[in-house]
């Protein structure tokens, strides 16, 4: 009949379905990086950055991370990291080589178990013709921090940004707060240790 409506009823009750022509977008530049992470759930990698240890100095932190991507939105992650604290504020004030902690006790090591949520997935456009799949995510969970000769139950929460460079390779930036109750000073107080890291991980 010449209309482009999807269905027409003739008088005898039969329905005529006409195909709709859909104009295809020019997708040449996107074919090049069709994602293939269909069978890949595990992600393993490393990270490095700065950890600001409350009452101490800011120190370099290194670690390993592993993630399991459960759904498009949720993932489970575990991190294992370590840093070496410098002088505490009290030691700096005392001066003259006064030390309240042994060198062993200055080692700050932690692990945590986190749930992550990919809140803003999408793409990032580096140049006119170069785009990568990316996601901004939130993480929260808990774990253990061993520092100053003690083991502390630590809550961790933060956010991060992941860019998928290849099917199997991602780069990510994370900002986290590791918080625990400290008994180092006579009064119990809650410490916040802020960590800012960059990491590289592989999907497989």
């Amino acid at each position, binding site marked *: 009949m010449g209309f482009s409506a*999807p269905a027409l009823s003739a008088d005898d009750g039969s329905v005529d*379905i006409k*195909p*709709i*022509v*859909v104009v*295809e*977008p020019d*997708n040449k530049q*996107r*074919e090049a*990086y*069709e*994602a*293939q*992470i*269909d*069978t890949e*759930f595990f992600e393993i990698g490393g990270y490095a950055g700065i950890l600001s240890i409350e009452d101490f100095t800011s120190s370099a932190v290194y670690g390993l991370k592993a993630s*399991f991507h*459960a*759904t*498009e*939105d*949720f993932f*489970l992650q*575990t991190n294992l990291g370590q840093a070496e604290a410098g002088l505490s504020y009290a030691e700096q004030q005392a001066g003259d080589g006064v030390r309240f902690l042994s060198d062993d006790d200055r080692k700050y090591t932690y692990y945590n*178990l986190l*749930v992550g949520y*990919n809140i803003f*997935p*999408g*793409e990032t456009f580096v140049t006119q013709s170069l*785009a990568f*799949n*990316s*996601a901004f995510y939130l993480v929260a*969970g*808990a*774990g*253990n921090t061993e520092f100053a*000769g*003690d*083991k*502390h*139950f630590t809550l961790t929460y933060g956010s991060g940004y992941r860019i998928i460079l290849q099917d199997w390779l991602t780069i990510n930036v994370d900002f986290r707060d590791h918080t625990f109750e400290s008994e180092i000073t006579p009064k119990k107080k809650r410490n916040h240790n802020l960590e800012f890291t960059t990491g590289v991980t592989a999907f497989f």
Partner: protein
Amino acid sequence: MLLATLLQAQPATDDSWLERFLSSYASSDKPQHELVRLSVIDSFIELHSGPGRGYPIIHTIEQGDEVNVYKRRGNWYLVSDRRLRQGWVTQEKLARTIAPTGLPAALPDVRHGDYLAQKFRVGFSLGKQDDDETAQVMVGFRLLSFASLEIEGGQIFADDIEGYSYGGNLLIEPIQSLSFTPFISHGYGKQVFQQKETLNVGRNNHYDSDYRFTGAGINFYIGLNFVMRGEYRKMHISGDNGSTSNSAWRIGFSSFF
């Protein structure tokens, strides 16, 4: 269109729809002998370049065109049209297709109980045992549709002592058709405590104890692969320095594969 009420379609072979989808998911690297073919009845369906809403749309498939379904990841399906242009489409959009017989396609429902091919589960839980915080890693295996076995190990955080625990649990989950499902659990294990080094006055005090517990909780299934759990346990601990009972609760996150 409700997925749950769609009629069973006639597949191209004698295998049921469910078996075909499950086998394609479990062995995603092997080519399919008989591909599932469906016809699009919506005006068009959009294909993304990857299994997520953040991936761009790269193709569209028109009404009346046939699609082949290759594999599933979460609730996204990898399909291609007759010109073999591939892309990912959500289960919701793919449901708007019909089988060659003209009946609507019956795709696996979103109920977690159906995915028996996903037998393993890995996750962690955080909680409290009396006043002490706990953190545990867990690996589970689904024995039957309503029963699973888990082994777990982790840490117990207390003021004066530090502890580790490990054990095995059995979970019974009778109802599977809802997103929130209750379960009961029972388990045995060991807890090892040690006095903290900072308080050490010479002797290294070390306590070993056995525990058993009975618990109950609720599983909340998000997506097809992800479950959040809230559990309460009544624990009975017996060891070197007598026996005691206490309560523990935890919140857990785990994923199937």
